[in-house]
């Protein structure tokens, strides 16, 4: 079966020499021992990707994501371990590599295509579809130096994905181009997936990871730190970012899903409940019903400025809506230790049927990166059902008033 990736005991170290002479001495006198130190950027990486699977690779800058991708694509050689890939690999690591500004788009398609291993005949047959997908019109016969960066990217993407690969490796290339082309390129990647292409995607973009990937891998400090469902890894990753300054991070199982709590825990959510219009706790709610999200926060230490935020997420972890009391100018100042604060957020639940979760954050400003007192994923889970409305699609309830005129 094509498109299988197996990574075993993979490690990468760079040699560091104390002075320029040390390398020369080591080369000249190989019997005199090593004069370099190894700087490990990746260690003990083991994972396997089945044909047709889509895996997201997550990690903060410097975690080793790019190095890992380079090892998988084969541009860099591993220091330990092996990478085995079956089938044709296409990598969108840096689009537009190998373009020469003085040549026309068409000439560059031929060169860049040959560089990734396509033959002249194949390129000749693929040319019309490359042209069509890039949508650069007559510019195809103009030198690339007159292209806008967006046009270059579109052409480069079209070449790289001209033929469906068995394995597609994407490194944040998706964040380029205009919104229209982003959608279009993403659609092509989805289409490849439907036809069985294995996908390895590196991105900071939560939406991209969660909407495409079956599984996510978190790299931390050059090691594989966690592997699992994308939303779970994404939650853990967000918590990890907040946890930077010696904050606690704990996870626990809630109804088969992993709940992640992180932060200094100087203030915590003591109670969270969704209430209906009669102030009764509910877990199943009708589309459009008036509800109140009631959150009780307990301060365990003096909090100079306290902001409570929440996010409603769908089944795959994409945020449907989120706000906080900072944005609403309702931050509390000088909360004393032991004080309990009850917040009531009342709103009509204008979202589509499905399972949703609520994540809460107790912070001091707009973001959880400054002071993160508590970040809690899957704090509450509820289900929306459509009991009284005609059937509709999607996660938002945007009921239209329809006016049809026939002249």
């Amino acid at each position: 079966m094509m498109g299988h990736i197996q990574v075993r005991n993979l490690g990468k170290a760079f040699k560091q020499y104390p002075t320029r002479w040390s390398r020369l001495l080591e080369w000249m006198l190989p019997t005199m021992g090593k004069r370099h130190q190894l700087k490990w950027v990746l260690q003990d990486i083991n994972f396997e990707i089945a044909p047709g699977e889509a895996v997201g690779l997550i990690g903060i800058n410097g975690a080793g994501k790019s190095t890992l991708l380079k090892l998988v694509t084969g541009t860099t050689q591993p220091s330990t371990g092996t990478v085995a890939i079956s089938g044709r690999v296409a990598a969108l690591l840096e689009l537009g590599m190998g373009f020469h500004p003085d040549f026309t788009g068409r000439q560059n398609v031929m060169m860049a295509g040959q560089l990734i291993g396509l033959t002249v005949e194949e390129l000749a047959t693929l040319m019309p579809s490359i042209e069509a997908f890039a949508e650069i019109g007559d510019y195809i016969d103009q030198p690339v130096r007159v292209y806008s960066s967006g046009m270059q990217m579109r052409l480069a993407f079209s070449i790289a994905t001209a033929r469906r690969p068995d394995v597609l490796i994407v490194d944040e290339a998706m964040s380029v181009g205009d919104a229209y082309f982003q959608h279009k390129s993403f659609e092509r990647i989805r289409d490849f997936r439907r036809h069985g292409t294995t996908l390895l995607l590196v991105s900071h973009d939560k939406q991209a990871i969660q909407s495409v990937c079956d599984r996510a891998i978190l790299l931390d400090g050059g090691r594989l730190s966690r592997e699992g469902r994308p939303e779970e890894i994404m939650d853990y990753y967000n918590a990890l970012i907040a946890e930077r300054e010696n904050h606690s991070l704990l996870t626990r199982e809630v109804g088969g899903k992993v709940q992640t709590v992180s932060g200094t825990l100087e203030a915590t959510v003591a109670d969270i409940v969704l209430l209906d219009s009669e102030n009764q706790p509910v877990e199943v709610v009708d589309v459009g019903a008036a509800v109140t999200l009631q959150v009780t926060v307990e301060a365990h230490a003096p909090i100079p400025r306290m902001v409570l935020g929440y996010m409603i997420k769908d089944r795959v972890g994409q945020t449907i809506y989120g706000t906080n009391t900072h944005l609403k100018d309702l931050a509390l100042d000088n909360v004393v230790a032991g004080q309990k604060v009850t917040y009531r957020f009342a709103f009509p639940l204008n979202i589509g049927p499905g399972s949703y979760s609520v994540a809460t954050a107790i912070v001091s400003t707009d973001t959880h990166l400054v002071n993160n007192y508590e970040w809690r994923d899957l704090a509450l889970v509820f289900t929306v059902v459509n009991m009284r409305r005609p059937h509709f699609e999607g996660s938002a309830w945007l009921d239209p008033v329809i006016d049809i005129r026939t002249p």
Partner: protein
Amino acid sequence: MISAALLKSVITYRGFIFGSVKREFQVKYGNAILGAAWTILNPLALILVYTVIFSEVMHSRLPGVTSTFAYSIYLCAGILTWGLFAEITGRSQNIFLDNANLIKKISFPRIALPLIVVLSACLNFAIIFGLFLGFLIISGNFPGWIMITLLPVLVIQILLAIGLGIILGVLNVFFRDVGQFFTIFLQFWFWFTPIVYPASILPPGVREALAWNPMAAIIGAYQTVLVNGTAPDWVSLARVAVISLLLCIFGLRLFRKRSGEMVDEL
């Protein structure tokens, strides 16, 4: 073995290699009004300068040769072929550094890069040498069938250049001094090779030292064939051939051993 896998990747990427050669040629001359004429004008100017200075001003004539063009032919035989050697070695020493981005980002057989240099240099050489041959025929100095003997000489010269070039190219990635050093070294090498002057004017001690200069044997072979119309000295060429092969083998081994580390260093 080494060569089998290497050869296979080269064949797979032949389109890329030929395409790059073509592209390089277009880049060099495509935007110039005179186009490919510049390939000729550059060495032509050099030959003109040397001919005027050495032949007219300094009145040096080749011993035993009376033709008016003899010195010019002697000069061309040396300078044009040295140019091929200098182009291949000079460009290969920077080949990995210049293509650092490509090497780091795209997985393709790196050996294609020095091959592009060699083919590109050969193309330039073919143009100018072809014109030179045309001049020989028109001026009635064409040496005839003995020209065939230049083919093995050319092969040996290219092997020497590429072997040396790959070694310099790899070393230059790790020790940037290598490139600087070789540029200077090439100047001395040029003047230590009988190209603008005949070997016979050297003092006997220095002439013996020429035996250690592989390029002296190669350039000498070109001059013997093109000026005198006689067969080159095969014994000295055989020695150079062995040196060239050894350099190529060493170069390829060095390249294979260090290519992984090279990517990290770029």
